[in-house]
């Protein structure tokens, strides 16, 4: 499953999930920054856990539930994290942004109200060269506040 849809592709067993997503499924929102699992630009959710898709062989992804940046917003409605990145200036050049958004979503799932240390630890696998991370930290805090407000609103 990719972004909620069942997908069938043919790929070499050791092809990188990153390439399968980008080349076979045209999901180019997932980026390659280093190809060795250091930068996190290729992060996706695999069965709800964050992984670097450049390190996942296609066969390992077989039968799993994958969510890429393209599957984070609901249609035109942005996810709270995406909205917070926009509001706080969390995206500059934008190349790390898909991975950062994925990492933030994963972080907020693990820690709905993360401490400063948990935010830093949760994003330490994603490199950003533009922002110095400060606006990204702010975006995570804002996303968790707005999610809390939404929850409160629906009660």
């Amino acid at each position: 499953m990719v972004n909620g849809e069942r997908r069938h592709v043919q790929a070499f067993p050791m092809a990188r999930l990153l390439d399968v997503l980008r080349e076979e499924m045209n999901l180019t929102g997932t980026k390659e920054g280093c190809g060795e699992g250091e930068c996190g630009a290729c992060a996706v959710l695999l069965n709800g856990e964050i992984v670097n898709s450049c390190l996942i062989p296609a066969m390992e992804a077989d039968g799993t539930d994958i969510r890429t940046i393209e599957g984070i917003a609901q249609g035109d409605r942005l996810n709270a994290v995406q909205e917070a990145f926009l509001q706080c200036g969390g995206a500059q050049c934008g190349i790390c942004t898909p991975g950062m958004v994925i990492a933030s979503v994963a972080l907020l799932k693990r820690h709905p109200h993360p401490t400063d240390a948990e935010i830093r630890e949760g994003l330490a696998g994603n490199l950003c060269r533009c922002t110095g991370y400060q606006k990204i930290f702010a975006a995570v805090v804002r996303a968790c506040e707005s999610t809390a407000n939404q929850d409160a609103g629906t009660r």
Partner: protein
Amino acid sequence: MEEKYFGHSVIRKEGREKVTGRARYVDDLTVPDMLHGVTVRSSIPRGRIRAIRFGDGIPWSEFTVVTAADIPGKNEVALIEHDQQCLAAEVFNHPEEAILLLAHPDQYLLEEARRAVYIDVEPLPAIFSIEDSIAKRAVIYGEDNVFKSYHMEKGDVDAAWAQADIIVEGEYRTGAQEQLYIENQGMIATANAADGVTVWGSLQCPYYVHKALVPIFNLPADKIRVIQTETGGGFGGKEEYPSMIAAHAGLLALKSGKPVKIIYDRAEDMVATTKRHPSRTRHRTGVTWDGKLVAMDIDFVIDGGAYATLSSVVLSRGTIHAAGIYSCPNVRVHSRAMATNAPPHGAFRGFGAPQSIFAIERHMDQIARAVNLSPEEIRRRNFIGKGQTTSTGQLIKEDVNFNTLLDRAFRESDYHAKRERFARENPGAPIKRGIGFATFMHGAGFTGSGEVYLASVVELEATPEGIVRVLAASTEIGQGTNTVFSQIAADALGISYDRIEIAQPDTGAVPNSGPTVASRTSMVVGNLVESAACDLKNKLVESGLLCDQCTETEFVRACQLYIETRGPLRSRSVYEPPPGLLWDDKKYSGDAYGTYAWAVYVAEVAVDSVTFEARVTDFVALQEVGKVIHPVLAAGQIEGGVAQAIGMALYENVVWREGRMANGQMTNYIMPTAADVPPIRVFFEEQPYPFGPHGAKGIGELPMDGPAPAIVNAIENAIGISIREIPATPEVLMEAMTEKAAAIV
């Protein structure tokens, strides 16, 4: 003019595409029938090509192979000098020089083929350090390995030594630094006889690439078209090298008759493309016992790598900033850019200034110690101010007051209390804490007459629907060009931000607004956007279709009527220098920049005396940058620059082995992560600059200048040892701290 958008943090123009992953970078694009291209490079630092052999087991007939012999025009990547080859024909001068290109539809086979090309070479003598280059251990450029030298003199330094009570000397070094934009470099090219060569790619300066491609392909200017795709960071690294990749992709496209895409992987990008120039600065300063600087003699040298590229201009900016922000009547700066057999070093945010500012700001702390004053007091006694002159003899006309800037930065950082507390608590503690600062400036825009020569142009065009498009070659590379231009244009036209569109930078469609470098885009090009917008509105007002205070609907109606009755509605603005700027390029004196951004940065560090690791634990960045156009973007520039400079100061160590970067991987070239950066607290002072849009000045490079000396000054405060080279890695600190311990025993 109402400031409805200026000064407000509107949503980034292309933000939605970026947070949803819909923004398309060059590697996200494919063209039907496209081939992939790779580069075969030299394997040793310097040599002569004897033969090229194609190994067995590869279906070579399926490949497009390009060598220097296939270049239709000149084999050079033109920039300032014409010394760099597009493909090495005979002699190569660094270990990553491009020799041969391959293209094939199958990327995997292509990689095997690259490894099967054997280049038989005769080694030539090579040099790898500033010292060996100066000593001419081998002569690899001209007669003396000097790409460029400057001699800048104010007053009479030789006569002034007599007034000094003490002479303080010091040598300071900075290492190479990789820009490390997260998007690797890449290009797609098409080429045919009818349309010429078109390239799409990740780049900062479309017209630089254009200028380089014209002689290589020997085509008229209108047969070369360069289009910028969404660009994932630049920092100077995509100022010059994209010309090389564009030429390579174009040559493969021309020979194969098919579109060709070249995307570097991280390793190739790190080892083959440009980095920050390593530097060595020697200071000799005459000081009186009461702390007045009477003479400064500065020898500033940068390692340019194998070809001249931008080294002369990097050297120029470093030279002008070398004496810092101090009012000294006698200053001499002698500077040189030297050739070595490493890949050419190039543009990187700050452009020579971070190197020479590191030296002067470290040296000021050494002078303070020598005359028994605090780092604060030595600076207060020498700060430049309104009515005084810089080292180029430029009269400061702005009301800059470093004493008040320093007061505020110390207040925000709690400097004095912390300095006292650390002195009390450090003895016996395993973690030594320190606080240090740097005071500095950064000249905004091109140096001297540079902006006059550029003669930048911006055009605006309105559609019948009342959409106004900004036509400029200035690129969005993350810093916010699209947003800032839209804010400025919307305010000048009195219409909403959403009515402004930014045209894709495309040399076939936009005028040359100059390169996206030198902190010039908001200040210089933004000003042109504003005047073109005022001009466009005036056309509507003068034609009687619009009154000055109009509603959005009236504006749309006026555009529609104008276009129906009079034809296209366009305006154009050409750069004019601020009045009264005088620069002497021969003597290197006068008004080096139209204006400067001024700053005080305070760093707090913790040095672990067991692991010898230094961490930045708090950071205050206070700057005067004219009026702030967009508070969130502006703070984002400062925070990002500070983080990048923390990397330069502590972590980012390029390991050289015979001219080649040996650690070209993110695994062992360490840039700051989310876990490494301190809270970066950004403060602005805003004094309007009369010649920037709404009073704005340049900002992008400033934050690269101050952090490294502030951090190393803080390290000295923590451990009592003067570190004179960066990056101050644990290895460097261990050596210094162990030596000190040994000396005490």
